[in-house]
């Protein structure tokens, strides 16, 4: 004898509930979280060093959490900016989950942090599925990786609210087909803003920081697709207490 139980639950409901709690926690602290995802070696850490250094210089309280399977190398690098930095070692896991980030932030997030950068594990597949309670999700790709990255990894680029091209100082040397890249982004995520940067020359970094800060002030309008999709399925939404996810104002 068997019986059937209808569940109709999102597979990642637990992560999404943690992400929702984290989003509320961050909002209560006045902190805007930026989730950075890209493949290994795309230049996330170099760009983040630049962003943190400039944020600190401009008097914007910023902090960073960086995740890797092993080593604290990235935290050591990022800490040179003068910003508070924490390393999460994922013990083999290929992505961050909301609960892991929440556990780290509850004891550590410095008071008054305006911008929290979360450097996800270098990987364009797994991190895309996990909402981390971020306000802004950025997918990065370097010019050296090939211009077809957006169509090869449509979940990562399709769910991003901003796409950042890195290492543009090498674009000519590697024959980066810019129009092909932009066409791929347009195919999988129409209308998403694209910014081009070089951590080496500093090109585009101020523009990127300004874009992030505009989002922090509630001016960012690109839709947070994943949060919108997931949160409507959560039980806590039924009592009407959940506000529509969006930029923290």
């Amino acid at each position, binding site marked *: *004898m*068997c*019986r059937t*139980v209808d569940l109709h*639950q*999102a597979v990642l*409901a637990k992560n999404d509930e943690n992400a929702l709690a984290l989003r509320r926690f961050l909002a209560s602290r006045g902190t805007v979280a930026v989730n950075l995802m890209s493949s290994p070696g795309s230049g996330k850490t170099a760009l983040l060093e630049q962003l943190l250094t400039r944020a600190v210089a401009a008097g914007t309280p910023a902090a960073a959490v960086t995740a890797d399977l092993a080593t604290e190398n990235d935290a050591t690098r990022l800490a040179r900016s003068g910003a508070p930095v924490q390393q999460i070692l994922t013990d083999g896991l290929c992505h961050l989950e909301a609960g892991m980030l929440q556990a780290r932030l509850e004891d550590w997030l410095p008071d008054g942090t305006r911008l929290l950068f979360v450097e996800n594990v270098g990987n364009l597949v797994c991190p895309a599925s996990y909402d981390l309670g971020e306000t802004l999700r950025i997918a990065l790709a370097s010019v050296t990786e090939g211009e077809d990255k957006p169509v090869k990894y*449509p979940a990562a680029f399709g769910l991003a609210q901003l796409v950042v091209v890195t290492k543009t100082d090498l674009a000519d040397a590697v024959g980066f087909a810019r129009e092909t890249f932009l066409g*791929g982004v*347009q195919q999988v995520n129409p209308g998403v803003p694209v910014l081009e940067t070089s951590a080496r020359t500093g090109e585009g970094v101020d523009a990127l920081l300004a874009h992030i800060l505009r989002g922090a002030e509630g001016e960012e309008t690109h839709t947070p697709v994943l949060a919108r999709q997931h949160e409507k399925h959560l039980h806590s939404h039924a009592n009407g207490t959940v506000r529509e996810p969006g930029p923290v104002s």
Partner: protein
Amino acid sequence: MHELSIAMAVIDQVRDAVPDDRVESLTLRIGELVAVVPEALDFSFGLAADGTLLAGARLVIETVDGEAHCDGCGRDTPTGMPPVLWCGDCERPLTLLAGRELEIVRVVVADEGPDGTAVGDTARDTTRDEETSHVPHR
């Protein structure tokens, strides 16, 4: 390989929903656009379910094709993979209708035996005690 994490999330949720029942089968709906490989998920599920009340359960995966709508020409079209979410004719973004599902639809559990006691009741505590050591950490 995040299919193992997905498999473990599925098992956690099913155990919360039917904590004392042995699961015969469970059905998932997985969209074409979510980058989950059914074969890898099936393999991971077998590993992660070992030593739980889901051990040996049959995993049924319903794949949902990506589909999008154009408000300009009114057409519903398959997105394909990689998805095309832009209508070249109307020069406008498409609205995604299906393809990002990642859902536990239902489970089929073993019902109580004819004498009113749950099947496998005596073995259950032992099985549950062993779960922690048998479920792969990652």
